[in-house]
């Protein structure tokens, strides 16, 4: 995470029409977890990530996946990323003092 503003910034992101981009909440995946998954023998060479700052979002980036990844491996990766991520629901944030 870049700094302590990354999470509130992402939670409060809005679309062009002013509505919330992420209505339910967000998933937080640490760089450390991503690096570990990248090195996993099953996914090595298929997964990467990049920073891609936008004018409207200094934290923006992309997960990069090779096109020729085997479909089964791709599905496993989905589960792997999901399991490594922490979910932050919007209602938790609203309930916090």
């Amino acid at each position, binding site marked *: 995470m870049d700094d302590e503003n990354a999470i509130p910034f992402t939670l409060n992101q809005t679309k062009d029409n002013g509505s919330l981009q992420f209505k339910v909440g967000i998933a937080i995946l640490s760089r450390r977890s991503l690096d*570990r998954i990248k090195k996993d023998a099953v996914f090595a060479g298929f997964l990467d990530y990049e920073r891609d700052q936008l004018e409207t979002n200094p934290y923006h980036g992309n997960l990069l996946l090779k096109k020729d990844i085997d479909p089964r491996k791709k599905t496993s990766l989905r589960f792997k990323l999901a399991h490594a991520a922490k979910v932050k629901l919007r209602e938790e944030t609203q309930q916090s003092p």
Partner: protein
Amino acid sequence: MSFALYGESDPISQAKSIVSRIEDPCVAEQVERLLSVIHKLITAVRQVKADLPGIPPLHAYQSEDGSVFVEWIFPDFRIGFNIESNQEDSGWHLVSNERLGEVTASGQLTSEREIMVLFVQFVLPNM
């Protein structure tokens, strides 16, 4: 087919609830069969192991292409099943965190045997 389980709440009830909404009959049949097998395994183990810890619920959701994902999420690992219209493309996936050795394994879902092996060799010992 009855899915009622005694004791704690039924771990497969949420996943079961989407079966009627699955448009592809081949996918629906595979999902029903999968849940039936898991239900039998849980029931059998509960009869033998009275002190079995709480079993997390299975979750199922349909993706845009009509396939269904079924997930069983435990604290240190997760088992997922992708159910496709072409049964040969349906599969199982096991991922774990660091604590259980960062396991990543997957395979085809061609018979009940794969589910039983997963359950007996990984789920039960690590619950």
